[in-house]
């Protein structure tokens, strides 16, 4: 088993307290970063090949660089802790079991982007993570780690709870919600780094992404980059659920294969049953078949199979799963969570759900599958945010890869 980096504290008792976190070497990264020029921190992060771990996989250091040079406006660091991608539950572990890793990461990032104020937008349903993280913030303030004493003009953290909308995990939807508005994604340009929260330059980073910063600063970019593949450094937390023997959060280098995650890390399929399908990166990722799992689980591996690593939420399905049923559940989710702002997404998520529901109820028509595929493809890439493209992932892949199962259901009107 490789060295644990992000999850090293997950099983350490009381690691959520400042004392235990420090005993394990906590805040050493921040101590070092304090002595570094902001540009040097950004450079180090670029060299580390750290990619955003919330879903989009964008190089973190590059994103920071989008803040207009020489901008004298306040700059905000916003932490996306809205973890809502179905099948994903890794940020929760950090918030609950290692909250100071996020605070330390925020301090480092804030220094790099010259931010004096950070917002942590926590998913509304995450009550315990919110409690634990808020307590850690208070501890950090009490210890002088946060507040006016932070070198470079101080740094404060505001913890904000969401109200239960998936779309508020989309970075500009999150910003709208944080601003007190309906959680609607914003038209781009302008991008958040130029004009984000409250009209000021804003960097939105995922919890896990920021938690990678202390080890990067402490142990160096080359070490971190060396843990992963050519295009992505480090390890990451894979949320594995479904029909595996040992579901849960698994940390592994991003070069790990999907097969290894299922069969080595998670003990294989329950009862030794055959694998039928697996979603590699949260519900928005295209589904993979058993012959597509010999891929590295970095940003490039799933992409080579037409899917995406996304939030690394892996949903494993054995042969008991009805794919039409699974698609209907996913379609219901996207119909329910579409914010309703852009026409293609608002209208077709509901329409596609109705069609999948009808198919599952045994009232499918032979033209339904082609209609779903056509509607999905016509809407893809036409919307303000990536939500609809995320919905299109399952719509198309479930049907194209399991078409015979859908057709059999439509023909017979009943599940096999």
């Amino acid at each position, binding site marked *: 088993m490789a060295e644990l980096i992000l999850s090293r504290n997950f099983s350490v008792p009381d690691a959520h307290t400042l004392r235990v976190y420090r005993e394990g070497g906590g805040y050493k990264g921040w101590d070092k970063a304090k002595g570094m020029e902001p540009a040097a921190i950004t450079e180090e992060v670029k060299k580390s090949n750290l990619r955003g771990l919330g879903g989009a996989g964008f190089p973190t250091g590059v994103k920071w660089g989008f803040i207009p040079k020489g901008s004298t406006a306040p700059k905000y660091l916003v932490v996306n802790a809205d973890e809502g991608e179905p099948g994903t539950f890794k940020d929760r572990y950090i918030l609950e079991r290692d909250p100071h890793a996020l605070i330390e990461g925020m301090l480092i990032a804030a220094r790099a982007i010259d931010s004096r104020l950070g917002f942590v937008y926590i998913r509304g349903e995450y009550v315990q993570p919110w409690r634990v993280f808020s307590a850690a913030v208070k501890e950090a303030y009490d210890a002088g780690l946060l507040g006016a004493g932070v070198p470079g003009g101080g740094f404060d953290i505001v913890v904000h709870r969401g109200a239960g909308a998936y779309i508020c995990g989309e970075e500009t939807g999150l910003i709208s919600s944080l601003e007190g508005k*309906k959680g609607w994604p914003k038209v781009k340009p302008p991008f958040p780094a130029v004009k984000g929260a409250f009209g000021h330059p804003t960097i939105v980073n995922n919890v896990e992404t920021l938690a990678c910063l202390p080890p990067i600063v402490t142990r160096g970019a080359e070490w971190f980059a060396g843990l992963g593949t050519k295009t992505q450094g480090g390890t990451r937390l894979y949320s594995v659920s479904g029909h595996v023997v040992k579901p849960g959060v698994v940390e592994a280098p991003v070069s790990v294969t999907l097969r290894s995650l299922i069969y080595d890390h998670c003990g294989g399929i329950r009862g030794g049953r055959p694998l039928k399908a697996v979603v590699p990166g949260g519900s928005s990722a295209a589904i993979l078949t058993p012959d597509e799992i010999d891929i590295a689980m970095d940003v490039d591996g799933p992409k080579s199979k037409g899917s995406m690593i996304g939030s690394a939420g892996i949903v494993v399905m054995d042969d008991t799963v009805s794919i039409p049923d699974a698609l209907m559940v996913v379609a219901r989710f996207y119909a329910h969570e579409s914010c*309703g702002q852009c*026409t*293609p997404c608002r209208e*077709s998520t*509901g329409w596609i759900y109705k069609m999948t529901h009808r198919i599952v109820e045994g009232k499918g028509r032979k033209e339904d599958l082609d209609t779903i595929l056509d509607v999905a493809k016509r809407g893809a890439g036409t919307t*303000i945010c990536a939500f609809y493209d995320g919905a299109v992932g399952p719509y198309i892949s479930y049907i194209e890869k399991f078409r015979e199962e859908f057709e059999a259901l439509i023909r017979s009107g009943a599940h096999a």
Partner: protein
Amino acid sequence: MPKLTVNGKEITVPDGTNLIEAAKAAGAEVPHYCYHPGLSIAGQCRLCMVDIDKVPRPQIACNTQAAEGMVVQTESERVKDTRRSMMEFHLINHPLDCPVCDQAGECWLQIYYMKHGLYDPRMTDEKVHKPKAVPLGPHVILDAERCILCSRCVRFCDEITGTGELGIFHRGDHSEIGLFPGTALENAYSGNVIDICPVGALTDRDFRFQVRVWYLDTAKSVCNGCARGCNIEIHTNKHRTHHNQGKRVARIKPRFHAEVNKWWICDAGRYGFRWIDDESRLAAPGVTVDGQSVETTWDDAVATFAGRMSRYRPEEIGVLASPQMSNEDLWALRRLLDSLGVMHRDFAVPPREPGEDDKLLIRADKNPNTRGAQLAGLGPAAGGLDAGGILDAAAAKKIKLLWVLHHDLTASGFAASRVSAALAGAETIVFQGTNANPTSARAALVLPSAAYAERDGTFTNFEGRVQRFRPAMAPLGEAQPDWVTFGLLAARLGKAGTDVALTAQRADEVFAALAAAVPAFSGMLYRTLGDTGQMVSA
């Protein structure tokens, strides 16, 4: 000033121009719903997609600024196909109730479906149901099923009036426009949301079910509701008299003017047209014989008036002109009064309730032509009395003939006792105006005026902009423009001479005479006023 190419045509546009406007400048129409030039960019409808060279996917034109060297296609096969898809998405949950929808005929779903849709519908499942016929305020009614959620109305209330009554509630295809709790859409500009609603979601409680829009005629006009002079269109129903409850004016819509009113008008202006087709309209001259008002001919009325006038010396005549009258009327009246030597004349009658200027369009002065009346010189002549003085002189029986134009003195800001003393004191009261009122009821002679909507003319707004209004319909009955009446009177009194203002056959001739005589209007002609008007010279 970027230079770009749209559909092969090279154009230069100002910095910051988006591709919808740039395409328009190049003669290409990019269909859109949520974009409105007076509101912020929403980017929601996704209909305005265009192809841009070197950009992999079609982009929304509303949020893309023209850039140097950009090559844009608005009619590529991919763009057309994308539009077709967007039209299908807009319509899958639409009730398609055009036969009973007031918007039919001016609905952008209909227009764009015919231009850019024409697909075979595939949606066979139950549509989403939402509230219907929900009154949002005194003027606006919502059908949420017809709504395409373009958010124009929401942005209007947020950005233009700043009242923020409307929001979009719920999510996904259950999203719907609605009022925030405890509010109603009753701001002073609420009717504008009906105009900017591209579909039949927001319709006019006043207009709805009255007449089909394709039966309407339209005329360019200027609102007479206050000193702003908002540009309007008057929509009339002239050919199907069984519709619109027999009324001719069906509705008033704003007409864009960049400097006066942009795209907007206030509700007071929009709905303030009832008097034009009201039963109180004066349709024929009337004389009082033995205490009874009887209709008569213009010949007889003018002869009667001339006869009365010649009974009195000029200083025994008091004239209350009105800033509701056009520049042409006021100038002809001025010439007539000057020829008669009448010095007791004024136009400024205080309102009973003083108005207030607001930050958008509404002016405290509820008259469209106060500036014009000032410039035409209808204030007291040298040694003449003002309006209050005229009333008091009538009460004191020094003024024997009181000629009231358009005012209802009993509803004015003058004290009731002062007005009744004046009306009781004057030997002869002549009323000239559009509608009967308690003042006209006291008149020995009543002369009917054509409403502004029934004739040509100009108003000068508070900023000094001279703007034309055009006839939307013929004058009611025997009513005629006031300048015509003044000319007839002048001829009868032998005072017309060669004065163009009193011998003219057309309104533009009277206006030209005004422009020739009053330096503020110097050089103006109807032709040069055009649709945007001209500013008086300082």
